[in-house]
């Protein structure tokens, strides 16, 4: 990595979400991206490969998402800040390596730009990869997933993702969607160190200095175990660590969560509409509020339960068929606030949709 700073000071910029990812990765000190084209994340790769030459970062287009995912794990194992980006069927295909990253505690970073599903679906937009991104693979969801809602957040959380990954050594995700990926809007880009954000130094898990067997023992990393008991011990240990660090990681925001007549819950880009709608309705004197998980894995369960408990009614709005609602209900088990869902799988949700639904709930 060269010493030249990609971003000096603070700058307003007008970018697409995909461009924002690439610039944030650059500013966040990413060393290498491995990727395979898929709409709507292509432009992350395009931008990255276009802007890196002066900074001595690397890019490899692999033969498929399986490879991109495994190579991404490899880059991180080798001690480099490594990332990839994918979507939809590519995300499904990449679960195999993501699952290895969970099992081996590999601090690889994944960018997910959700598209319509199932299967090829559309190349446009959805929130139908929530379950897949938070709990995909044959594992237990040892992943940290930031669900962003605007370009500023894309920038901030992409930088943060590298720090989270390398601090806690769980695979870390920034989850956006096709709308955000292709949308052009303004944000402030900056050099994180200048803002006082300490960037965590990556550490190799293989290939450390010294001759193995002479200067140090060789490192032998595995993800398979001979006995049930061995795997069990690993599972319990990692789960406990995941639970322990969750308190440090979870992020959420809420408004008027003290005692709203209706609390609206949503994540990612849908939150923009929720935010707008709730603001408008509050202006109109309606007693409504919102709760938004920023980390969808782990979830800020305490804040969530609090908000749900205080509300008279809850509306979960999402561009999928209840993937968020299912999680909310599981996390809030034991509470009795009625929860209803507004689901537009693969379609955008606008503020007037939210207002209409909330008002219908208020009337009931």
């Amino acid at each position: 990595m060269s010493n030249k700073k990609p971003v000096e000071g603070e700058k307003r910029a007008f970018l697409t979400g995909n461009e924002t990812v690439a610039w944030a990765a650059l500013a966040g000190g990413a060393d290498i991206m491995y990727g395979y084209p898929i709409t709507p994340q292509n432009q992350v790769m395009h931008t990255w490969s276009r802007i890196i030459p002066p900074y001595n970062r690397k890019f490899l287009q692999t033969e498929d998402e399986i490879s991109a995912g495994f190579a991404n794990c490899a880059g991180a194992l080798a001690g480099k800040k490594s990332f990839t980006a994918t979507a939809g069927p590519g995300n499904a295909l990449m679960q195999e390596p993501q699952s290895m990253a969970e099992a081996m505690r590999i601090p690889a970073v994944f960018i997910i730009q959700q598209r319509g599903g199932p299967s090829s679906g559309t190349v446009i937009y959805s929130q139908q990869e929530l379950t897949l991104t938070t709990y995909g693979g044959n594992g237990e969801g040892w992943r940290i997933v930031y669900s962003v809602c605007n370009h500023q957040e894309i920038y901030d959380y992409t930088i943060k993702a590298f720090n989270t990954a390398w601090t806690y050594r769980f695979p870390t995700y920034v989850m956006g969607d096709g709308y955000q990926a292709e949308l052009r809007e303004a944000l402030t880009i900056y050099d994180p160190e200048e803002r006082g954000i300490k960037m965590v130094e990556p550490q190799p898990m293989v290939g450390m200095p010294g001759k193995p067997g002479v200067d140090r023992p060789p490192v032998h990393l595995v993800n398979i175990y001979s006995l049930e008991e061995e795997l069990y011990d690993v599972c319990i240990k990692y789960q406990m660590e995941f639970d322990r660090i969750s308190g440090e990681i979870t992020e959420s925001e809420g408004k008027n969560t003290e005692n709203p007549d209706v609390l609206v819950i949503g994540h990612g880009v849908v939150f923009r509409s929720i935010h707008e709608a709730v603001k408008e309705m509050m202006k109109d004197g309606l007693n409504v509020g919102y709760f938004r998980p920023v980390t969808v894995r782990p979830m800020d369960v305490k804040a969530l339960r609090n908000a749900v408990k205080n509300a008279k009614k809850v509306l979960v709005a999402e561009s999928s068929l209840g993937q968020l609602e299912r999680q909310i209900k599981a996390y809030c088990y034991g509470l009795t606030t009625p929860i209803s869902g507004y689901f537009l799988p693969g379609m955008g949700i606008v503020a007037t949709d939210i207002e209409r639904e909330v008002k219908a709930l208020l009337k009931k």
Partner: protein
Amino acid sequence: MAKIALAGEGGQGVQAIAQIMVNAAFNEGKNACYLPNFGLEQRGGVSLSFVQISDSEIGAPKFKISDIVIALSKRAVVRTKQYVGPDTIFIYDNTRVAESPDYAARKILGIPATDVANKELSSRVFNIIILGTVIKVTGILGVDSVKYALQESLKEKFLKNPDLKDLNFKALESGMSLVEEVL
């Protein structure tokens, strides 16, 4: 707040004028965003663009009902129907689209942009005429700031051929007056 949906055939420059508009808004310190649509085909689909310009924060990147719809071909007229509401101003190129659509909009305005471009200016600035009409109808952007953004985006072309600048500015103004006539 202005929500503008632009639609046309590939090559008509729809995305370019969306870009100029949001650049102008950005320069004016307004909130602005623009979402191109993307279908499956690389070519041949209707090119759509969702532009929003506002003094306050912008919500969803894609809206369902437009304040203004611009449709530049027959297919574009059909494709944009879903974005038309009772308060929408619907503008179409009446050179290319003979019949005025019977959408339940606030206003439906036919602009002979193609005709004017071909006859009075140049077919190349067809989209700038359209830009002019949008600017006029929305009134949300300063003409100077649009001109500045236009200039920025065509800087290199203008450098090579200084006459182009004039041509484009004329097109812009002509778009503005064309729509004034029918408003």
